[in-house]
């Protein structure tokens, strides 16, 4: 089996898996990072969203081969950053209910704020529409992203 070099949350990891193994299962089963969730396996629900070189990707349909040698950020990487503005905003808005999709929501929001530090509602909707939440936390997600954007911008 081939070996791949992954940079997960700024840590170099060597994994020996088949080339077509989805990154989702490498993260969860090879590296034990279970914060990234399985929801559909087809890139339809976004529960498995991670950052690949800063952009939101669906880990369930991305092969390990295509993720190799790139910077991967998972929810565990976001958490490692003390008082991450997104986590603070998610806490303050009490976004989470069951919580299963929230890692995917937070990573999608991180990609959005990387690209657009002060997104409009429309931009939030465009960027976040790929991530399903059955508990219906969408209105709070919108508020939390605005809140995080303000915090990042120095509390304006």
């Amino acid at each position, binding site marked *: 089996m081939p070996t791949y070099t992954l940079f997960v949350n700024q840590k170099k990891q060597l994994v020996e898996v088949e080339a077509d193994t989805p990154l989702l*299962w490498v993260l969860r089963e090879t590296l034990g990072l279970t*914060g990234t969730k399985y*929801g559909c396996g087809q890139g339809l629900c976004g529960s498995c969203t991670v950052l690949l070189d800063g952009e939101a990707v669906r880990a369930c349909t991305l092969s390990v081969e295509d993720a190799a040698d790139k910077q991967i950020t998972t*929810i565990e990487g976001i958490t490692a950053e003390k008082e991450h503005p997104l986590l603070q905003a998610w806490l303050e808005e009490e976004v989470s209910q069951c919580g299963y999709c929230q890692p995917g929501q937070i990573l999608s929001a991180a990609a959005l704020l990387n690209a657009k530090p002060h997104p409009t509602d429309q931009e939030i909707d465009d960027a976040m*529409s790929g991530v399903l939440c059955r508990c219906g936390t969408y209105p709070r997600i919108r508020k939390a992203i605005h809140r995080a954007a303000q915090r990042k911008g120095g509390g304006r």
Partner: protein
Amino acid sequence: MKRRMHINRREFLQVLGAGGAGLTLGVFRLAPAQTQEGSGVFKPNEFLSIDPDGTVTIWVARSELGQGARTAVPMMVAEELDADWEKIRIMPALAHPSKYGSMQTGGSTTVRRGWEPLRKAGATAREMLITAAAQTWGVERATCRTENGIVYHIPSGRTLTYGELAGAAAALPVPAEVKLKDAKDYKIIGKQKARLDTPDKLSGKALFGFDFMLPGLAVAAIAHPPVLGGTVKSWDGSATKQLKGVKEIVQVPHGIAVIADSVWAALQGRDQLKVEWHKGENANLDSAAIEQYFLEKSREQGALVRTEGDAAAALSAAAKHITAQYHVPFISHSPMEPMNCVADVQSDRVEIWAPTQNPQWVQRMAAEVTGLALEKVFVNTTLSGGGFGRRLMVDYAEEAVDLSMRLKAPVKVIWSREDDLQHGYFRPGSYHALEGAVDDQHRITAWKHRIVAPSISAQLFPGQERRGNPDLVDGAAQVPYRLGIIAIDYVMANTALPVTWLRSVYNSANAFVNESFLDELAHAAGRDPLALRLELLPAESRLRGALQLAAEKAGWGEALPRGRGRGIACHACFGSYAAHVAEVTVTPEGRLSVNRVVCAIDCGQAVHPEGVRQQMEGAVVFSLSGAMREAITLQNGSVVQQNFDTYDLLRIHETPAIEVYIVDSTLAPGGVGEPGVPPVAPALCNAICAATGIRVRRLPLSANDLAWS
């Protein structure tokens, strides 16, 4: 093939059967817990303990599905304990047949059924801590008070913490009667508290069932029969066996299980499996046939559930005789975390880790399947990534127990999203025929409703039919208006499609029909839908307050241009009273946007108000999703929908602004998880009618052309 149920209907009815009013429940008594002598730990009952360091542990016997059980339950205990909220730690309770009472998380019962026993559990401990302090100081109990985990001797100002008193309190007898606080003295109930489960959920540390691992744990994916009720004819696993990571292939009662060392290998192995199926008797069943069957059943003699006056005479004498037929589809719960369960069956014990709403049923199932005694079955309830009723069923847990027995090793059964949609249990579809009469004084003079639907109870518990009205009339029989002449009847129409309880159960369909048809009658009578409802509701109805609050906040009555409209609807169930106003825009081409939904709920005392708001917001999204586009359909005996491409849920860009208002109340709490659901679909469809003149009588909305000119 029918699955066994492992529980009888009567046991279920205690919590779930009657959709709200008039449940008969045994009075649950607090049993003194066993405490280890000399440990210094104070455990006056099964719900809480206090360690010498002051940590208060609260056992939560209801599942955390996202609805906030693991916050609302400790709030009720901590209030009467006068605990320091910062010292609260929660423990999910292991399944036990009796010591916590019912552990089923269904019927919106966590708070309303916990209200008495959980507060008493806290108050009992507090009484004993005061006694321990008074004895330590040699003072009268009446000269002591408690606050924030500390007993104070008022005259001297001396203090002892609950931790310091734990050892002494543990030696005291448990009082039989305790006094509970007045609502005006609450410091925790009804106040803002951060959810206790949130930090781990945001960090990715929270362990859902899908995340649970044991060393060397085998993972199984099961190929289920694509046709409902199908069985295995033959199979060829040669391609599967060549895959790395695949360990074994085993025929099981409901298909072929691929056992592997990872989820990915199990799913791949299943894809490579070649199975020939006996299709069985449902091979030609499809949704059109089910709809036709409902129509045929609707022409049979209905069984009356409620009759007041002579409906036939009133209808024939009416100035306007309105008739309408409504169609409600089967829909799926689709929680984000698919079904899964870990089981470890050994010769003398079973341990299970499951995201379940029903640990006691899992326990009983495992005891029956393995032949072990109940007390040898240990069921750990993990976090659930949503539930909505699906996890009241134990089918997926039974697969894990059965497979672990066969393999003589622990195993984790995982379902894919396709499994969840194709092999689930669904909200029953239904057909409704309505007639109404309006006289020349703009009054409603008759209401007739025939419900045709499958009975969940009849399918799950055959031969144990409920005495009196069946489940399928819940929410229809209780039409809350003084309509004068009423005739409500039903024809039970069971199908092969598996059905179960889905968030608000029959109330979602029956409230859609009731509240839409009332709107039709209001239009026919030339009456304002809000004014008519207020006129027809009895003076004591708690729906009035909810309706008025929602209407006021939504700006009911303010003019809107054509193509925009407001709709109102209300419904009472599970002990609470909800009203919603939806505001929509429909373009002439028929494109719908839901702009705003204003919700009001009278749930009695709101224990965790932020949790109530979350549940109401969630209910709006959940039921807009259902009303706008969800439908499970059958073709040649197979569920057509496979994944979120063909069963798409509401997404953020379609979600309206949602406002929630809670009616101020100190009455005993009602349910909150479900009551917000039923009024959404009718409020939405009434708004569409106000905007366009188009009356939606068939859900989902995607089956309707909303173009207008």
